[in-house]
């Protein structure tokens, strides 16, 4: 896949990048990273990948989602994907990729 392996990835640059799954299918954009404290370390557990790129783009993501829900949209459709750290391949940080399919995520 990628030629060089970066060990240091900048979180601020990951934000907003598009994520595709193992088949190259669009999943969404990285919006948030979840981490848990473990002793002296802070370990990444999940990536939130959202589908409302337009909201995110105009900084109205949360308001937009809130409005959608308020207007009766289903909770599931507005919710971002919650991707476990081991399913996200960041060897090329500019093109993050899942090492599974979107359907596999849903079935979990």
């Amino acid at each position, binding site marked *: 896949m990628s030629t060089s392996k970066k060990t240091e990835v900048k979180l*601020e640059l990951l934000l907003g990048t598009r994520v595709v799954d193992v088949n190259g299918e669009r999943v969404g954009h990285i919006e948030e990273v979840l981490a848990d404290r473990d002793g002296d370390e802070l370990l990444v557990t999940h990536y939130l990948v959202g589908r409302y790129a337009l909201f995110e783009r105009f900084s109205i993501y949360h308001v937009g989602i809130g409005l959608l829900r308020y207007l009766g949209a289903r909770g599931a459709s507005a919710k971002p994907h919650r991707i476990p750290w081991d399913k996200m391949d960041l060897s090329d940080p500019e093109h993050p990729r899942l090492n599974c399919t979107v359907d596999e995520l849903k079935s979990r």
Partner: protein
Amino acid sequence: MKAHYFLVRDLLDNQLVDRDKRNLGKIDGIALHVAQGKQTRVTHLESGALILARRLGPRWERIAAFMTRHFGVRKNPVFRVPWSKVTKTGIDIHIDIDGVKSDAFAWEHWLDDHLIGRLPLAHEHIKED
């Protein structure tokens, strides 16, 4: 310190505060260590114009790189704090270092030595409470 973090909400862009409650800049960037087979972890909190400019796009990054190369006064253009130095998190992120001696204050010192401090009345200014 809490156990679960939303890195963007809780850390990125929040205020860095040293042990004497001085402002050391915002957290402009967060460095993650990614390695195959090992859980990704947060290694450093970063602060610096270069990091900020990069978030705005390649052109701004080039401008910032040029500026820091020619006019920078910091030893290292990016001020990095290891995660292990973090003592308290909340709206502000407290770290256990002496800010005045750190690189985060390089510009403060430079301006004070070369410009602000040389102007009349700069030091009699105001009595501290």
